[in-house]
Every structure is written in structure tokens, then in C-alpha cells.
């Protein structure tokens, strides 16, 4: 019994120290993997772009056109974009065009480190 609880304690401490608890993007999204980009910091606003073009803002399914009504684009801020690796350049463009002429916003595309 004692050696068992020792091992369980060690495992617990390993997962507590080495693991990170962070909000993951939706299961359906496969993030593209990269090796050269800079490491990311967590953002409060998160957009998730699915392979079929669906969009989620902080876990809530929204239309691309209604993005402007959900975010105050006049103020400055940064947003984390979790886009599926299969998203096409056109779909990405449609999303970015919603942020047109708002240089005070920074859109950070998140990828998975290889």
C-alpha cells in the first residue's frame, strides 16, 4: 500500500508541475504545426475557425458577418485565432476582411509546435 501511494504521489506531482491547464480549441480543429514561429501567450478573446468555415467566438458559434457586432473594433486589442490546418486562403481572407482598416487590432494565428 505504501509504495503504491508513493508512486501515485510522484505521478500527481509530475502532472501538476509539468502539465499546463489551458483552454484547448474545439476537438474538430486540427491546428497546423510549425517549428519556426515565436511561442504564444494566452489571449482572452479567441476565435476558432473550422475547416468548413464555421466560426466560434469564445466557444459560441457565430456568423462571420456578425463579428463586428460582437467585438468593439473601435477599441484596440488582440485576438487569438485557432484555425484548422485545412482552412483555405479564401476562408481566412473572408474572416480577415472583417477586421479591415482596424490596424489597432492584432490578430494572432495560433499553431501547434512541432
Amino acid at each position, binding site marked *: 500500500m505504501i509504495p503504491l501511494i508513493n508512486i501515485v504521489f510522484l505521478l500527481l506531482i509530475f*502532472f501538476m508541475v509539468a502539465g499546463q491547464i489551458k483552454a484547448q480549441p474545439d476537438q474538430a480543429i486540427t491546428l497546423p504545426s510549425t517549428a519556426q514561429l515565436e511561442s504564444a501567450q494566452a489571449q482572452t478573446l479567441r476565435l476558432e475557425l473550422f475547416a468548413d468555415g464555421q466560426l466560434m467566438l469564445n466557444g459560441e458559434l457565430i456568423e462571420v458577418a456578425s463579428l463586428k457586432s460582437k467585438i468593439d473594433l473601435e477599441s484596440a486589442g488582440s485576438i487569438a485565432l485557432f484555425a484548422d490546418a485545412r482552412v483555405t486562403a479564401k476562408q481566412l481572407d473572408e474572416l480577415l476582411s472583417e477586421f479591415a482598416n482596424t490596424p489597432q487590432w492584432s*490578430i494572432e494565428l495560433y499553431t501547434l509546435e512541432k
Partner: protein
Amino acid sequence: MIHMDSLGSGGRRAKPISLTALIDVVFILLMFFMLTSSFSQWQMLELSVPTSSEQAEQDAPPVLIVYENEFALLTDVIKRPVSLKSVLLELSGAVNKPLVISGEESVTLARLLNVYEQMQILGFKHLQIGQSISEKSE
């Protein structure tokens, strides 16, 4: 007769911690941390927001158009799709200048990022992912 060292402050006997209950709690904590923690690291790339100023159009950097299998450079020299090698020959010596990487509409994000990283390895310092380019407009 009760020994003094087994007495609590109130004179009652101190109960030993039940090992079974303790291991139950520790197991639950272990399960929680195993299931919720992740070891994957994220990287990020700042996307440029489209702007419509005349100034930006005047000093526009060269655009590398990425197709499914080929490349093209949006300059007067190369407009038809060619290999990456030909594009690099054209761009050699311009690694310190800005370069925009744009995908043809159906090109995936994974492919765009792959090209972005390849150009980064080759030494290009001012890279940007640009707006997609439709085949019809060429």
C-alpha cells in the same frame, strides 16, 4: 494506562489518517491533472489586417503566390506558375526586403504556413501572409 505521547491537546486519542481515503483523493486529483493538463506548446504568427490606403498600394512588396504545387511571383518578370527554385533565383538578394506570401483561393493554411516557414529558414525577415488571390483575376 494511556501513554502521554498518544494524547491530543484535549486529552483525546489522535486518530491516524485513513490511508484508503487518502489514496482515493490522491487518485482523483491524479486523474484530474492527467486529463486536463496538456504538454503541447503553441506558436503564433501575427496576421496583417487588410488596409486600403493609397500609400500602401504604392510601395507594395513583391507577392509570392502559392498554388497547390507551384509558385508564382507577382512581378513583371514571372507571372506564370514556376518552381520554387526559379522564384528563389528571382528573389535572391532580397532577403532583407519585405515579402508577402499569398495563397491561391483553394490553398490550405497548412500549405501557406509551410511556405512561410521555408522562406523564414532561407533568411527572409519581413514576411507577411497576404490576401488570397483568385485564379480568375490573373
